[in-house]
Every structure is written in structure tokens, then in C-alpha cells.
């Protein structure tokens, strides 16, 4: 040992995928040189928790997922404050703010940026995205002057923003373009249940409309809607989903689809270049097609796998799986895999609704394998079902048994 040349690892992004990759590399290669490049200067933190800072239930100092000594402890050189501007695949180097950083192994874990919308007047003040700790800090500083907020988008970010603002005593109107809330996460039945729950808690949700323009003097004061009406507002939050942050990628050198395409080793089409997290696109276990699943647990898993492969341990990743768990007021919703399968393609659907207990459960099967679940309330065994999807276990139990309240791990042991 010691004869080998020291490996030089460069990680783009200090989100959760980058952090787990760095830790895994350090575990396997104590001497390698690790450089982490990010535009965010805040220590690695929990992005999903920023809405709790907006709401006021968690102080900002609880956001970090690693202590401030993280970089030092893992012997990582942090390069913070600027985005990477280019990747030179042929010469194995990335450039940041005019400075070059050579690499032997590169991980692209740049995550995703909020999806922009097309509307007039977006340059006005008090129109926000909610993606980073900085965004929330900016929102918090304007809160004292805000009375009416408009939230665009009925996805998770839209929800969390609405909930947080409501808790701050601000009147919130949500505009959702699709027919029901959380249309990317749940099916229409669960969506309707969620809508009922929201209405019961005083949230003003408008379905089937979107904002087309904003007006005001310096700060926003009114929004034009697609149905021709107007809404007064002094704050707008845009939560229209995210898009992989891959603008700097040379597309002729690295294969790019919606995200950066990776193989089972999280390696891109360029040797030595890996991708993980919200920016990566790998095979989806339930869909059986390449897919970007921009969720926290995937970022952790992919970051670890990328780290192992970068450090020389060839490890394959089975594929990603979309999943989410959402707690809305008194309601728990868990979804995983393929929940609204294309019709007439050999999928079987099993549904059980109990309107009195306010539960709804749906299973989607392809042949004898479980490929998707939707559960509203009573979610404790959801992890067991998700493990069945992930492991693609043939289900030999009667399918109804999976939906019974008595279902538990023991019944699987006898399959």
C-alpha cells in the first residue's frame, strides 16, 4: 500500500446524495482526495424540513444533517458558493468560477432546481420558489407584511408552503391545475379524500386554474388567472415541481434524457463519471423503464452505491422506486411504485375503501408481483408492502390478505 497513486474524487453538490457518497468513499478509501463543490454555503442540511422552518415548528439551526465539522472530519475539501460551470470529460476536469479541478472519479449530484413557470410579472418582489434554506429565509423576512398568499401547484411543495403559511396566520389560496391535489403522488380517489380534508381545515383550494400574470408596484399585489378572474395577493409561492440541474452537462459526451442517464453502477455513459440523486435517471423497479425519482431515500441509496463504485467496489443497484409519505392535518397518505398504471396492459387493481374509518387502500399487481400501493391512514405495514415491491417477490398469499388489518410480516414467512 502507499505505492498506488492517490485517487482524486470530485463531488458536485453537497445535498444528501453527495454527502452519503463522500462518506462511503471515505470509508473505503481513507487516503483519496475528496473535493465537494456546491453553490450552497449552509452546512449539509435536510431539504424536506425547510417547510417546518417556514411553519415555525423547527428552528433553522436544526436543519443540518451533519455537524459543522463534517468536511474536516471526513477530510473533504469544500468549494462552496459557486455552481460548477463546465465538465471537461476528455481532460477529466470540472471548472468552477474559472478555476479547474481535475478528477479521477466524478459524481454529479447537483440535484434539481424548481421548475420555472411562464407568466408575466415574475420579476416582482415577494414571488418565491421554495427549494432551499435561502428561499425560506427570504420568505420569513417578508412574512410580517403578508396577509394573503397565493400558492401555485398542488404538489408536496405547494402543500407544505400552504400549511406553513396557514400556521403563520396568513390567508392562503392554492391554485392547482389538475383535477385533484397531489396528482403526481396519489390516484384520484385518494386525491379527493385529501381535498375533503383540506377543505375541512379551511384551506381555499381552486382546481383546474393557473396564474397567467402578476401585477403590482415593485411587489406583487394581484394575480391574473387562466379563467379570466383576478386574485389579490401580497405573496406568491411557486411549487410546480423540480427539474434536474444538468444545464452544464456536455450532452454529446454524457447521455442525458430527463435526467443524467446512469447504469446499475450509477455510472454515466462517460467512464469515471457518476450521477446520483435528483439529477440521475436510472431504471425504475415498478415501471421497468428509466425514470427520475427525485426523493430523499433514493438520493441516499444512490449516493451510497455511487460512492462504493467510485471507490472501486463494484456494486449494482437494482433500480429506483417512487414513494412518498405525506401527513396532511389528521391524515396519513403513503404511496409507492406504479399507482395509476396504463389501462389494458395486464395490471390488476384491488381496492378497499372504508368511508367510516376514512381509510382507502389500493394495490396494483403486474402478474403475481405487487408493483404499486396507495394507502390512506393506517400506514404502519406500508413498509412491508414496499419491500415486496422492491424485492419483486411473487405473492402467493390471497391478495386480499395484504389489505386486511391483521396483515403482518409473519404471513409472508409462509409464502
Amino acid at each position, binding site marked *: 500500500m502507499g505505492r498506488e497513486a492517490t485517487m482524486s474524487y470530485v463531488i458536485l453538490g453537497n445535498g444528501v446524495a453527495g454527502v452519503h457518497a463522500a462518506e462511503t468513499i471515505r470509508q473505503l478509501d481513507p487516503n483519496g482526495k475528496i473535493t465537494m463543490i456546491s453553490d450552497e454555503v449552509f452546512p449539509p442540511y*435536510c431539504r424536506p424540513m425547510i417547510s417546518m422552518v417556514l411553519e415555525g415548528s423547527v428552528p433553522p439551526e*436544526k436543519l443540518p444533517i451533519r455537524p459543522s465539522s463534517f468536511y474536516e472530519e471526513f477530510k473533504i475539501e469544500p468549494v462552496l458558493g459557486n455552481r460548477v460551470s463546465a465538465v471537461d470529460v476528455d481532460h477529466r476536469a470540472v471548472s468552477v468560477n474559472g478555476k479547474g479541478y481535475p478528477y479521477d472519479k466524478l459524481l454529479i449530484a447537483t440535484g434539481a432546481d424548481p421548475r420555472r413557470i411562464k407568466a408575466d410579472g415574475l420579476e416582482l418582489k415577494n414571488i418565491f420558489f421554495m427549494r432551499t434554506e435561502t428561499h425560506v429565509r427570504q420568505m420569513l423576512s417578508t412574512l410580517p407584511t403578508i396577509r394573503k398568499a397565493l400558492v401555485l401547484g398542488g404538489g408536496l411543495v405547494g402543500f407544505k408552503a400552504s400549511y406553513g403559511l396557514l400556521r403563520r396566520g396568513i390567508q392562503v389560496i392554492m391554485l392547482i391545475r389538475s383535477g385533484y391535489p397531489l396528482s403526481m403522488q396519489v390516484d384520484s380517489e385518494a386525491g379527493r379524500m385529501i381535498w375533503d380534508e383540506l377543505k375541512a381545515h379551511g384551506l381555499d383550494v381552486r382546481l383546474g386554474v393557473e396564474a397567467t400574470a402578476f401585477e403590482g408596484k415593485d411587489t406583487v399585489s394581484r394575480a391574473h388567472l387562466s379563467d379570466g378572474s383576478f386574485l389579490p395577493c401580497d405573496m406568491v409561492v411557486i411549487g410546480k415541481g423540480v427539474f434536474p440541474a444538468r444545464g452544464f452537462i456536455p450532452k454529446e459526451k454524457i447521455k442525458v434524457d430527463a435526467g443524467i442517464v446512469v447504469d446499475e453502477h450509477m455510472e454515466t455513459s462517460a467512464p469515471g463519471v457518476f450521477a446520483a440523486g435528483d439529477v440521475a435517471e436510472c431504471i425504475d423497479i415498478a415501471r421497468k423503464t428509466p425514470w427520475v425519482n427525485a426523493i430523499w431515500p433514493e438520493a441516499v441509496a444512490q449516493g*451510497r452505491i455511487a460512492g462504493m463504485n467510485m471507490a472501486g467496489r463494484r456494486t449494482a443497484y437494482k433500480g429506483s422506486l417512487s414513494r412518498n*409519505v405525506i401527513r396532511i392535518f389528521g391524515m396519513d397518505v403513503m404511496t409507492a411504485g406504479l399507482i395509476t398504471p396504463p389501462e389494458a396492459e395486464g395490471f390488476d387493481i384491488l381496492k378497499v375503501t372504508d368511508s367510516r374509518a376514512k381509510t382507502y387502500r389500493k394495490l396494483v399487481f403486474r402478474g403475481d408481483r405487487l408493483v404499486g400501493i396507495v394507502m390512506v391512514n393506517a400506514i404502519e405495514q406500508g*413498509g412491508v408492502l414496499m419491500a415486496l415491491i422492491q424485492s419483486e417477490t411473487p405473492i402467493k398469499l390471497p391478495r386480499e390478505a395484504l389489505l386486511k388489518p391483521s396483515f403482518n*410480516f409473519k404471513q409472508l414467512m*409462509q409464502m
Partner: protein
Amino acid sequence: MKEVVVHPERCVGCMQCMAACAAAHSRSKNLFLASLETPRPRARVHVGVGLYNEGFPNRCRHCDPTPCLLACLPGAISRNAEKNTVFIDPNRCINCASCAMACPFGVIRYHEDFMAPPGKTVAVKCDNCYERQLAGLIPACVEVCKSGALSFEEKADAMKRKTDEVARSVSAGVAQVDLAPGFTLLNAIKRQQIELAR
């Protein structure tokens, strides 16, 4: 290091482990006083029913790598290497249920707990009775189990015994060695009753 080992073929589903667990994780550590406490202490081991109504004490496997730890958003879940135990810090937990989504065994529950900030719902699961172990006691579920479905021993010992049992079962001239004759009989009767009822 000793660990809790589950022997599912011996479980009769009496649920005494659940009561003992709840009491061990109460303010008073006493079953009768615990039943009067607020928040009400709850079990971290969960006896489930199999297809033939046989019992199964489902408890945290303290997996490594740890799916719940990797899924935890606020970093509330940690692993104690010395006792091979996965802990949830109730002060950091934000009750997001990401761990429920990750747990392949369905052993995490969400409720108030006397160890958590008052009025806060948190994720709760088995801690291998860490406090009891520090005091020189064995985990409460094992202590109370009368059928031998739960034992507290070196993993290597348990595996050796099981290996020997399997080896003996294939020895020449042995038709079948019943590892737990009483329970086999009981389970066979239960099985018959249920199949008749169908």
C-alpha cells in the same frame, strides 16, 4: 454480545411480551402503575397472527445497513455499535413517517411517549431495553416469555444450536426430529380448527 433471538415456532401468541415491553418503557416500570400513566405506555414488540392464528413476536431487527436510518430526514436515527442497537432520538424526530415507509418489517409506531417532549407524537420502536441492559437486566420481552419464543444469547451460540438441530434432523435413521413437540401439536390442532371453519 448477547442479542434477542426470536424462535417463531415456539410462540403461542400470549402477548405477555407486549405487556412487559410497555411496562419496561414506562415512567414507573411497573405494570399496574404503568396502566394508569399518561401518555399510556405502549409496546415496541408486536405479536402478529399468521395464516393459522399462530403468533409471531415482530420486533425491530436492528438491521445493518439500516433502512430507517437511511430514510430518516432529520437524522434522528442512529446506531449504537456496542449494543448493536438502532435508536430513535425523540427530540430530533419530526414524525414524518419516512421510517415507516422504509421498514421492511413494519415495526415502527407513532405515538406519544414519556421520553418524548410532552404532547409530541414521535416514531417509537424497540431499543433492546438499553436502560435495563445497562442496569444488568435482560430485555423485558425475553424475561417474561414463558414458551421460549424469545431468548437472549450470543448469536453464534444460537446459530450453532440451530445448525446442530438441522444436522441431527438429517442423520441416518432419523425420520423427523420435532424441534418443539408441544407447539407442533398445538399448532396442528389450531390449523385444523381454522381449516374446518373455512
